[in-house]
């Protein structure tokens, strides 16, 4: 009965760990998506000097060490892009003669944290030709901060769960140790080393860890395939997570953590009992 309680508690902690890994993957995927799409859009004034742009400004920006690429999007390019993205506007463009969309430079940087610096530099050095510079930095930054907070708070809860599991394992094994106290006493008196006495209990801890890890893997597999796939119908980024996460990658981590919990719990319980006697 006690072993069953221990398995339930350890499994709960390991399921939390599995969900934490899944959530972390989801957050990473969203952040990665943001990062890949982050670009500086520098809208250009109508009637800009094309020669200055091609010969001076674009080469100048391309030479910034933080910049990965610079692409000129003309008014026509912008119109075609918009038609592709919003097919419903095709009719609107056929009615209006003048193209209201501005030309722009699309600049991709190598790392998202340089967006602000590159933007500032562009404004200072090339301000004359650039009307407005925008990037999704504010949204990206707030998401990064939110995901960081989520990770920290999840990690805190997770650590509490893992410590609780170790305590439960230690208490469970301690009871087994006490129930076999007579045998341990005889072992000590006939010359058994502490390690010889501890090994069976450490194996018991490992057994608890493996069983709980396997159960937690099944639960996480169910959550991934059931809950995540269902949610991915509404949140498209979850689709990649649900399909892309390798369950074996999570499985071995859960079992490993379970085993470590088992070993640490067994070591605590046997050490406290053995230390009562030489």
């Amino acid at each position, binding site marked *: 009965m006690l072993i069953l309680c221990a398995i339930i508690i350890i499994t709960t902690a390991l399921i939390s760990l599995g969900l934490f890994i899944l959530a972390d993957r989801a957050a990473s995927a969203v952040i990665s998506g943001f990062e890949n799409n982050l670009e500086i859009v520098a809208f250009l004034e109508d009637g800009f000097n094309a020669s200055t742009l091609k010969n001076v400004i674009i080469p100048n920006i391309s030479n910034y060490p933080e910049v990965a690429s610079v692409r000129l999007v003309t008014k026509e390019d912008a119109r075609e892009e918009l038609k592709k993205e919003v097919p419903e506007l095709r009719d609107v463009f056929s009615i209006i003669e003048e193209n209201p969309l501005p030309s722009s430079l699309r600049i991709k940087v190598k790392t998202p944290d340089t967006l602000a610096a590159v933007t500032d530099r562009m404004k200072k050095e090339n301000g004359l030709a650039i009307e407005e510079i925008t990037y999704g930095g504010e949204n990206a930054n707030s998401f990064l901060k939110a995901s960081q907070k989520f990770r920290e708070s999840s990690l805190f809860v997770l650590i509490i769960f893992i410590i609780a599991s170790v305590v439960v394992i230690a208490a469970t094994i301690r009871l087994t140790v006490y129930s076999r106290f007579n045998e341990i006493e005889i072992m000590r008196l*006939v010359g058994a080393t502490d390690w010889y006495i501890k090994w069976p209990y450490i194996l018991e801890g490992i057994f608890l860890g493996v069983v709980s890890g396997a159960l937690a893997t099944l639960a996480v597999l169910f959550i991934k395939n059931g809950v995540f796939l269902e949610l991915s119908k509404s949140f498209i980024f979850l689709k990649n997570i649900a399909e892309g996460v390798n369950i074996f990658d999570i499985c071995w981590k859960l079992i490993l953590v379970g085993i470590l919990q088992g070993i640490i719990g067994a070591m605590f319980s046997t050490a406290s009992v053995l230390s009562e006697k030489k």
Partner: protein
Amino acid sequence: MIEFSDVSKIYSNGVVAISDVSLRIEKGEFVFLIGPSGAGKTTLLKMVFCDETPTTGNVFVDGRNISKLRRSEIPYLRRNVGVVFQDFKLLDDRDIFENVGFALKVMGFAPQLIANQVNHVLEQVGLSTKKRMFPSQLSGGEKQRVCIARAIVNNPAILVTDEPTGNLDPYISWEIMKTIIDINNKGTTVIFATHNKDLVDRMRKRVLVLRDGRLTKDEPRGTFDFEENVL
């Protein structure tokens, strides 16, 4: 050789179990340890196999100060000291063969060697026909002989017995005594703590008397006598 040098033991509750005891027991010697209950006999015996450590003073076994042993070294000392208890300390869920072989198994001996050695000592204590019986199926005297067999199965240099005949009738007590004398005759040092006057008086071996933790008498061919004759 066992030597106690100015040994005292005071427990954490303030009880003085052993007070300034010095004594020397030669290799192969047989010594009775007598005294009233609470005199410190068990504490003194426990110091021989490091189940207790002196508060002050030192205990030497074969010239080595065992009071200073590290925890990891104690098991190896115990493999050289057989211990027999009044309450047997047998494992009820294992048969006689397994109980005796347990000591060798703990030391990592091969199964064949364990079998040979266990059969040999069971023959020695007269229990070879009962090796597949469980402790609950044996009489008190037989249980004590199992305990002796377990204590000597790895040929220890020292045998410590704490009132091994305490719960046994006089006839069985003599059987146990004879078994232990046989072991002593093969060179094992024996310390025999007892309340059995008959055994001590008849054997006329060396007798150590403890009273209130003090060694009050040490006679080469002593009798069971608690008279005040402070050393």
